């Protein structure tokens, strides 16, 4: 169903009032609402607004459906190969634990790709992973480790492209219509419910922020990059999507390009 500009405005205002989350600076937000409305089979805008207002569970679920990104496992296999062969192996001294942060996480698969990669290069014990989101249901969904079974063949093909060490199916428990990442692999990931504005994460070596900036208008991008910058250690790396850039970031000189192809930037030391 097509959402009118007025509907969009009403929904944004209601979410702001009820959930204290400001979507006024999100790009193409109307498309995201349309997606959530489809997934939740909502047919009436007034009804939707009432539910957001009155039902906490519903509004949290609605937020999750708006923002959950169906990203494939090992999307951009060149990037994952580079991360494994160069970034982890050569660019890192392993004295301290490597702290990896997923600010405003919106994809399970991006996290699971990292976990599988770390497991295969024997660095799981040397890393600390934090995933933050304002949506509890988002965190629960990602923590469950579940991926749709119908995508597994596609994921296996991607895993083959990165020359994975074993078999992808070894990392998952197969159910009827979904597969779940082995819970043991998720045990050491800290899932923290908080907004970026209230961020408490600090001393991060690697901020994984691929294809997240696609959601934000430029003023909001600036604000969020500031927050991520403050959470990082000097010399730490920020990774964004392969077709994103920080050219419009008002303080772009604080992030030095580390790898142009894979959009890896280093926080100035």
């Amino acid at each position, binding site marked *: 169903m097509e959402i009118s500009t007025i509907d969009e405005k009403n929904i944004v205002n209601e979410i702001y009032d009820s959930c204290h989350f400001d979507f006024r600076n999100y790009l*193409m937000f109307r498309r995201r609402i349309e997606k959530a409305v489809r997934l939740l089979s909502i047919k009436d805008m007034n009804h939707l607004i009432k539910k957001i207002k009155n039902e906490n569970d519903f509004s949290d679920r609605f937020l999750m459906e708006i923002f959950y990104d169906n990203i494939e496992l090992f999307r951009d296999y060149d990037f994952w190969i580079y991360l494994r062969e160069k970034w982890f192996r050569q660019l890192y001294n392993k004295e301290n634990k490597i702290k990896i942060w997923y600010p405003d996480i919106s994809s399970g698969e991006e996290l699971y790709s990292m976990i599988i990669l770390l497991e295969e290069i024997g660095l799981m014990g040397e890393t600390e992973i934090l995933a933050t989101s304002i949506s509890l249901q988002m965190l629960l969904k990602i923590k469950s480790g579940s991926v749709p079974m119908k995508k597994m063949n596609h994921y296996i093909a991607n895993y083959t492209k990165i020359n994975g060490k074993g078999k992808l199916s070894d990392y998952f428990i197969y159910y009827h219509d979904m597969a779940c990442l082995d819970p043991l692999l998720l045990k050491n990931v800290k899932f923290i419910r908080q907004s970026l504005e209230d961020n408490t994460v600090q001393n991060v070596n690697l901020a994984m922020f691929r294809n997240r900036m696609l959601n934000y208008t430029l003023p909001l991008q600036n604000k969020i990059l500031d927050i991520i910058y403050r959470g990082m250690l000097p010399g730490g790396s920020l990774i964004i999507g392969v077709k994103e850039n920080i*050219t419009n970031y008002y303080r772009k000189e604080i992030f030095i390009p580390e790898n142009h192809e894979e959009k890896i930037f280093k926080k100035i030391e």
Partner: protein
Amino acid sequence: MYEAIVIGGSAGSFNVIIKMLNELPASFRLPLFLCLHRLKNVRSGFVEALSIKSKIMVIEPDHNEKIRSGIAYLAPSNYHMLIGSKELILLNIEDPINHSRPSIDILFESAAEVYKDKLIGIILSGANNDGAYGLKKIHLSGGLTIVQDPKDAQINTMPDAAIQNTTINHIYDTEQIIHFLTQLNTV
């Protein structure tokens, strides 16, 4: 009068696009937005292949790329390309439409919203229906619709689907499409 051209194609469209880019003059005034179905994980090589004899610069835009006249913007692999405004290209990673990402429908629909009757939409050879819905949106917003003649197209599924779905202003073969676009430059 017209301010932008969006072109969608799949299997069999590559040669048409190459010919077009090689014959359009370097002084071509309008931005061209190309959505060609492509190998998903192949991030480089396509732009280079299109650029070989092209007189027009071909770019794969980043998200938030500024739109400049006389440039051909090729939708990057595994992203949808949208027109955000007359100044900006946006990318996103929504689900593929009919297994296609980039999707022609998504490009055409967003372009129709921004450019309205100042838009020309062209559908070329291809093996699926992507673009039929988008071309309809262009027509409904007052834009001009062109389809490669199914008899001229290497694979006629995509042109036929578009013809079935909406009013087409011109059904042209490759030569006629290029001639039409070249004429635009002199207006």
